[in-house]
């Protein structure tokens, strides 16, 4: 596949704080790639290096085969939608959108057409003469996107663009962004710390922690087959259990043996096991692999969220069936729903890159 952007061995340090450590990542043409990770893990820094606002201490940024590591931001074929919109407060909406085109000396009629087109695209026709501070957060955000896309960048960088919006607006904007991406046919690099947002929108998710890439994959891969406990924990709710891989396809969890489908971990190896709450099946006590007691239940609309204490562990369970608090239940998990992961050997390794 065609690599549009290739980050090679990028390291970035801010006064002795290593923010990115030997990062390798490529982005394909037309991909919707999301950098996902907790606050402070280096997402914005990665984006700023691609945009040209930050120079890596070492490593190179390759764009379309060219080394652009030290190219000024105004010479790059990427445009950024900044975290807090960053509209020009002294210009009206039309002037904001026209900014990049005027710099490039486009004709007046071309610029006017583009403004119309862009405002239509973000559903804000007729806003030409409004000032930015008279717009709501969501509208300013859409103007920021319009201002970027009229320049027809090859890549659009978006830094938590929906972070400041409320839930309903955020969901609407997620669909808007997916529609935009499809209409424009350009590459999106999207930064967020919201796992739901990442799962909804992305073709590829890059999970980051403390400056290291933890896992790269499709939303389904990341959700169903997290490669380590950090990813499992960060993406959605999960039960992460200390376990021992007895042999291929058999794992001992909390003293009970469960059939699983993983192989190749050796015999009697300590591993981490991830079981999603919706994969935990509650059955009659005598039919389960282990036995427990429901200690907590909340109605969540689509399902009930329950806590079940079994063999000293609080299991998080999602089920459409209700079990009253105090009910004795058995826990059963289908073999293919048990996700086995290597244990990190040290603190450090917990945050070490996993390159394919």
């Amino acid at each position, binding site marked *: 596949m065609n690599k549009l952007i290739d980050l090679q061995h990028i390291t970035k340090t801010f006064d002795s704080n290593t923010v990115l450590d030997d990062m390798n990542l490529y982005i394909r043409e037309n991909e919707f790639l999301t950098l996902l990770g907790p606050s402070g893990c280096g997402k914005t820094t990665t984006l700023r290096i691609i*945009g*040209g*606002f930050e120079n890596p201490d070492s490593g190179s940024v390759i764009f379309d085969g060219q080394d652009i590591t030290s190219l*000024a*931001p*105004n010479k790059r074929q*990427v*445009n*950024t939608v*900044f*975290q*807090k919109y*960053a*509209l*020009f*407060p*002294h210009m009206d909406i039309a002037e904001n959108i026209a*900014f*990049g085109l005027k*710099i*490039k000396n486009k004709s007046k009629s071309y610029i006017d057409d583009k403004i119309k087109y862009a405002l239509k695209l973000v559903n804000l026709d007729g806003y030409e003469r409004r*000032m930015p501070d008279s717009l709501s957060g969501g509208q300013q955000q859409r103007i920021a996107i319009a*201002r*970027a896309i009229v*320049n027809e960048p090859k890549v659009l960088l978006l830094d938590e663009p929906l972070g400041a919006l409320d839930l309903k607006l955020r969901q609407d904007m997620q669909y808007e962004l997916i529609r935009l991406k499809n209409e424009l046919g350009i590459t999106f690099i999207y930064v967020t710390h919201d796992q739901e947002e990442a799962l909804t929108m992305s073709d590829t998710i890059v999970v980051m922690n403390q400056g290291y890439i933890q896992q790269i994959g499709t939303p389904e891969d990341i959700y169903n087959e997290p490669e380590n406990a950090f990813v499992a924990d960060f993406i959605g709710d999960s039960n992460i259990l200390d376990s021992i891989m007895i042999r291929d396809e058999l794992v001992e969890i909390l003293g009970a043996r469960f059939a699983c489908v993983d192989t190749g971990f050796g015999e009697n190896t300590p591993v981490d096991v991830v079981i999603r709450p919706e994969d935990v099946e509650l059955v009659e006590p005598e039919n389960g692999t282990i036995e427990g007691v429901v200690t907590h239940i909340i109605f969540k609309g689509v399902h009930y969220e329950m806590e079940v204490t079994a063999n000293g562990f609080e299991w998080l369970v999602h089920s459409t069936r209700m079990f009253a608090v105090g009910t004795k239940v058995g826990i059963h998990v289908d073999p293919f729903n048990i996700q086995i992961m290597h244990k990190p050997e040290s603190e450090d390794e917990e945050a070490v890159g996993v390159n394919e």
Partner: protein
Amino acid sequence: MSNGKKLLACPYVIWSAVFIIIPLCMVFYYGLTDKSGAFTMANIAAIATAEHAKALWLSILLSLISTVICFLLAYPLAMILCNLNVNQHSFIVLVFILPMWMNFLLRTLAWQTLLEKTGVINNILGFLHLPTLNIINTPYAIILGMVYNFLPFMVLPLYNVLVKIDKNVINAARDLGANSIQTFFKVILPLSVPGIISGITMVFVPALTTFVISTLLGGSKILLIGNVIEQEFTQTGNWNLGSGLSIVLMLFIIINMVATAIFDKEGTGTAL
């Protein structure tokens, strides 16, 4: 406002009455009457005499030049200050503010000593066999004095607006293809207009009315409008003429402030 707060405002009200309102009324009273106390416009019309008009013209000219020089020095300085990290920052501000703790008169007197024909600067220049500097008692020395004394009043408001400009707005301009010069003229400069306006006012007004700087650095030969007014009060003892000329000067200042306020509103829409 609660009663307690009203009570707290009392000293300020008294202060303004005693030191602002009453003197202002007296200036207007003296300015619009003659020695016998009868109403007259003669004191105000006196600005038209050759001597007074020349002093006013020179004052405006020197203040304008000083304001421009202050602006050209202060803008880059304020920009540099904004880009420093916190530690360097407080150090530079300290270096900059330190002379401000010294009395205004002393500072200007110090310049007199430095600039004198046989003063410190010329001694050093002479020692190095360089041509001496003869600007004491010329308009150049007055401009130097004005710039030196009023520069901080330009730097401060500029710094205040520049430091508030969102770094990402500047990044956005770069991101959209503007080079650093285009970014400066299209984004940074327009966004700093409110600071420029208040900086200009804060330098131009005191420079226009000063008489200390011109007395100490201009010798007795160069009369600014401030000197003329001062002499009417302290030497000639003609309070009526002094007040009349003060009213004219006040008028100029008010015109200046109104003009900048209007320009500010039209020009940017960002200033409050």
